[in-house]
């Protein structure tokens, strides 16, 4: 069996909280606090969870947009979390990103042609200027934009078209992995469908692995292979697509799924009490214990580790027999 494309081991990222006149460090935001997972070639792994659960921080840590606090990030057998800036260059080509906001993630003063040519030049992928020109044109075809749009600037495009430019820019470097950080969240329903379909086609065509960070569970179910559910900086459940959507193990996953309103479905949502606690001072024991309908003594004392529930499903919960029907939660 070949090694996975990306391996993340016990990743932690703590941001300092400063206060007072001299900005002394008075605490930490435990944004990501011990997260491990793998992504195979050509696979889509989705990170889901609510605001502040740390899913975007994980994405950024993998992109090395900042240094991590501890843990390992291994790309294709090579550790990338401790690489020097020079050593990072090769890795940067292989891991690209598509951001949420197609308005602020494209330089408004550059033509589309230059936006797409920049990564090709940076990584010396083109053999000649004719080759460069050809690659840029081919990228436009790939994301289904007209070639004559190459001389235009970002403001002349709609949100969906800009997101296509963002995707083309990510593809320009010929990556193995694309981190999609809420890449379709800002788009309107009909445009969102276009971009989701495009991402799926590109994955097929180029064998891309996707780390799909999203809070939209219906979109995730539609396009993912595996899902990792995050809560307050930890993964609480990880499972293949069908498993997580038909037989969720963790009470939080159940609540999350039942909270999605849906056309034409009779539902009995689990309404969680209260808000997500602050990641500056996460609850002791299981981090979900303040909102969990099934909480008992052990949850407040001991943090549950991920345990296998069979068929590739991993759940971090102390409940021996995991609770059954979502409706019975009351």
């Amino acid at each position, binding site marked *: 069996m070949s090694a996975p494309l990306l391996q993340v081991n016990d990743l932690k990222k703590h941001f300092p909280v400063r206060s007072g006149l001299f900005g002394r460090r008075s605490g930490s935001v435990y944004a990501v606090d011990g997260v491990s997972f793998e992504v195979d070639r050509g696979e889509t792994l989705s990170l889901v969870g*609510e*605001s502040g659960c740390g899913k975007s921080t994980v994405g950024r840590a993998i992109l090395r947009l900042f240094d991590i606090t501890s843990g390992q990030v291994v790309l294709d057998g090579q550790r990338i979390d401790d690489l020097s800036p020079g050593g990072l260059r090769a890795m940067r080509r292989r891991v690209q990103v598509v951001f949420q906001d197609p308005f602020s993630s494209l330089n408004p003063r550059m033509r589309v042609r230059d936006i797409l040519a920049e990564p090709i030049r940076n990584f010396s992928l083109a053999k000649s200027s004719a080759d460069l020109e050809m690659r840029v044109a081919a990228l436009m075809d790939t994301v289904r934009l007209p070639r004559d749009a190459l001389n235009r600037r970002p403001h002349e495009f*709609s949100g*969906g078209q800009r997101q296509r430019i963002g995707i083309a820019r990510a593809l320009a470097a010929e990556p193995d992995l694309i981190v999609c950080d809420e890449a379709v969240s800002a788009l*309107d*329903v*009909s445009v*969102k*469908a*276009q971009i*989701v*379909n495009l991402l*799926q086609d590109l994955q097929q065509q180029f064998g891309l692995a996707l780390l799909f960070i999203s*809070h939209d*569970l*219906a*979109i995730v*179910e*539609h*396009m993912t292979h595996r899902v990792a559910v995050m809560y307050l900086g930890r993964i609480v459940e990880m499972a293949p*697509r*069908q498993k997580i*959507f*038909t037989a969720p193990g963790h009470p939080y996953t159940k*609540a*999350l*799924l*039942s*909270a*999605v*309103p*849906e*056309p*034409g*479905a009779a539902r009995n*949502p689990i*309404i*969680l009490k*209260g*808000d*997500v606690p602050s990641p500056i001072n996460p609850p002791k024991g299981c981090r979900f214990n303040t909102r969990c309908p099934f909480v008992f003594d052990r949850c407040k004392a001991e943090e549950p580790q991920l345990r296998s529930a069979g068929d590739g499903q991993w759940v971090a919960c102390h409940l021996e027999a995991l609770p059954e029907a979502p409706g019975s939660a009351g």
Partner: protein
Amino acid sequence: MALLEVENLQTHFRTPDGINRAVDGVSFQVDEGETLAIVGESGCGKSVTSMSLMRLIPEPPGRIAGAVRFQGRDLLQLSEREMRAVRGNDVSMIFQEPMSSLNPVLTVGRQIGETLRMHQGLDKQAAELRAVEMLNLVGIPEPARRVREYPHQLSGGMRQRVMIAMALACNPKLLIADEPTTALDVTIQAQILQLMLDLKRRVGAAIVLITHDLGVVAEIAERVMVMYAGRKVEEAPVARLFRSPRHPYTQGLLGAVPKLGSSLTGAARRLTEIPGQVPSLKKAIEGCAFAGRCALATDLCRQVAPGLEVKGPGHIAACHYAAKEAAAA
């Protein structure tokens, strides 16, 4: 008589490059205690419609024409002074972004109390007492302490609860909610929707809900109106619309949203794409506004704008071919 009757509402904006017809001839009714949802994508005019009902559109550059009859009285004919007595009292509004619609330098108690003091003539103490009561009603723990806090001290879900408390303080007959849960996480959204359903039962206010999320519509609305390019293209009772949408745009919209449970059916279905984009509202649109993106469009559609026709009980749609579609299916 319906509680609210909107007739041929037209809200246009003057811009440097032409007149933007954001809302172009929309009519609808809301009965007492009823929930009507207005759905559509960005720029379809749903928010402008809601702002027009409250006359919150700055004039100029905006211009509102038509009639908005609330309990038989045309709000568009009222003086600004008379209108102020309506806003927040008989008709109130919840906005999408609770952080930017609350005043950051006033305590939430003072903000809830303000409407009470203005409309119901309560004094300071009575207003604060009632504010505590309202916070309790919307399920904020420790209301007596929270009432003295500032918006930044509350979480997003709690701020939206404060907005709802403020909107309901004077027992309005009509509540306009513009994307009330869009900025919230799903578990918090579920809490707020539950609260709105619960309050609707207890308070009995009619609701006009503006949203782009069809799931939210299914959750709390009784009737739905679909807007496209400033026009109403379809209206039906909720269950009917989801079961048998007649307008091709509505059909596309429903097909474009993946549903939870898609992994059960096994084979991955492709999402329906609606090709192209919404037409510019700055040019006069000839014929059907959706014709440019519609698979069924013919020359008739491109030349003659379809009127709203009855397609079933309580179900109307503006499409030349909608009836034929259903007969064939």
